C-alpha cells in the first residue's frame, strides 16, 4: 500500500467515524424529543352549554390557542377533543379562560400526557412540561407511557364536585391552586401555580 492510498483510506475512515458520530447525536436528539414529557391531548367537557351556536363559539375560541393543533367535537356530550402541537407548551389555565370567554365553564378536563418513569405519590409535586402537578389521592406508583390525568382544581370541575374534593383534602393549596404553607416550596420564594390532579 502506497502512502497516498493509506492517507485516502484514513480520511475515508475518519469520515465514517464522523458519520456514525453524527448519527448517534441525531439519534440522541430524536430520542430526547420523543421521550420528552408533553401533554399530547385533552378531553374537555364544557358545562352550561345549551346550543350548537354556543358550542361553536366555544370551539372557535379554543382554536385561537397557539398550542392547539386540532379539535374534534363530540356534540352530544359537549366534549372537545384537543390535540396539541408536538413540542408545544400547553397552558392549562388558558384553555379554561377560552371556555369561560365563550360564556361557559369547564366541567371536566382529562389530559393525556406521556411519562417516562415518573414516580408519583400522594400529594407529591411533579414538575412536568412546564407545569407543576399536585397528585391528590394518588397511590405510590411509577408512571410510564401515556397516562390520563384529570385536573380537579376550582373551575375545572363543577362547583358540587369541587366541594366534594375539598372535603377530601385539608390542604389550603387546593382552594387557591397556588403553593401554600402546606406545600414544600421547593426553593420558590413566590407561590407558584400548581394544578391539582387525580390519576
Amino acid at each position, binding site marked *: 500500500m502506497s502512502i497516498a492510498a493509506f492517507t485516502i483510506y484514513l480520511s475515508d475512515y475518519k469520515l465514517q467515524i464522523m458519520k456514525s458520530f453524527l448519527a448517534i447525536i441525531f439519534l440522541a436528539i430524536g430520542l430526547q424529543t420523543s421521550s420528552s414529557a408533553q401533554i399530547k391531548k385533552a378531553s374537555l367537557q364544557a358545562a352550561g*352549554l*345549551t346550543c*350548537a351556536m354556543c358550542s361553536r363559539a366555544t370551539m372557535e375560541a379554543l*382554536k385561537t390557542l397557539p398550542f392547539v393543533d386540532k379539535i374534534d367535537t363530540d356534540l352530544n356530550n359537549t366534549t372537545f377533543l384537543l390535540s396539541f402541537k408536538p413540542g408545544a407548551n400547553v397552558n392549562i389555565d388558558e384553555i379554561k379562560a377560552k371556555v369561560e*370567554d365563550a360564556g361557559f365553564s369547564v366541567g371536566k378536563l382529562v389530559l393525556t400526557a406521556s411519562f417516562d418513569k415518573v414516580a408519583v405519590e400522594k400529594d407529591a409535586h411533579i414538575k412536568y412540561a412546564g407545569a407543576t402537578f399536585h397528585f391528590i389521592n394518588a397511590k405510590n406508583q411509577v408512571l410510564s407511557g401515556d397516562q390520563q390525568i384529570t385536573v380537579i382544581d376550582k373551575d375545572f370541575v363543577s362547583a358540587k364536585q369541587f366541594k366534594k374534593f375539598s372535603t377530601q383534602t385539608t390542604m389550603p393549596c387546593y382552594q387557591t391552586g397556588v403553593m401554600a404553607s402546606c406545600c414544600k416550596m421547593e426553593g420558590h420564594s413566590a407561590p407558584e401555580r400548581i394544578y391539582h390532579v387525580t390519576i
Partner: protein
Amino acid sequence: MPAFLHAQELYVSTEPASNMAANSFGFRVTNRFFKMEHEGVTGMRIEPELMWGISKKLMVHVVGLASNQMQPSLRFEGGSVYAKYRFLSNDDVQSHFRMAAYVKGSVINNPFVPVMREGAVKPYDNQELDLEGGASGFSGGIIATQLIHKLAVSATVGYNRFLNNTKDNLPDYLSDNAVNYSLSAGYLLLPRSYRSYDQTNLNIYVEFLGKANTDAVSRNQYLDVAPAIQLIFNSSTRLDFSYRTELFGDMSRNVFNTFTLRFEHNIFNISTKRK
C-alpha cells in the same frame, strides 16, 4: 343523557341572562309588521342591530330604527344602545343558572301621535310607550335564566322611564314610568341528536310579555303571548319568526298584534390578539 343540549335560550322577544361569546360579533335585521288599529292597515318597522361581546361578562347592542308607524312613508326614527352584564353564572353539566343586569337608552325622533291619514277608521287611542320607536328614555332590569333538563326558562323584570322625544314633548296623559316583565321558555325540536355544526336546528319558544304603566294619570297594564320558531344554520346564522298578541289587559293600544321576522349572523373571534 345530554338533556341540557336540548334547552334553548336564544329568545326572540327577550334576552337571556347568558351573554354572547367574548370577542364575537353579530348583526341582526329585525322586521316587524303590525296592524295599526286607528287605520286598520299594517305598519312596519326595520331594526338593524349590531352586537358585540366585549368580555365574557359584558355585551352591547346598538340598534337603529326606521318605521312608517307615525307617517305614511318609512322614515328613520332613531336608535338605542343596550348593555348587559352577567353577574352570576353557575354551570353544571346538565344545568345552569345565570343572572344579568341590563340598561338601555333610546333616542327617538317621533311624534307621540301619528299624522292622521285619509280614511282613518278609528281615533288614535294609545297609552303604550316603548323604547323601540315609541319614545326616548331609558330602562334597566334584571334577567335570570335557568336550565331545567330540557327546558330553558328565563325571567326579566325591568323599569322604564320615558322622556321627551327629540322634537316632541311627552304628553301629560301618558305614563312616564312603566314596569316590564317577561317569562320565556325554549325547547329544541331538531336535531334529535347532534353530529355536526352543519345540522340545522329547529327551536320553539313561548314568551309571556307584560307591561304596566305606573303613573296615576294612566295606570293600566297588559300581558301578551309571543310564540316563536327559530332555525339555526351552520351554528352561526339564525332565522326567527314570532307572532305576538295580547292575552289580556286594560291598556289602550294602537297595536295588539305584531309579526316579527329576524335574521341574525354571528362571527366568532373578531380579534385573535387577545390570549
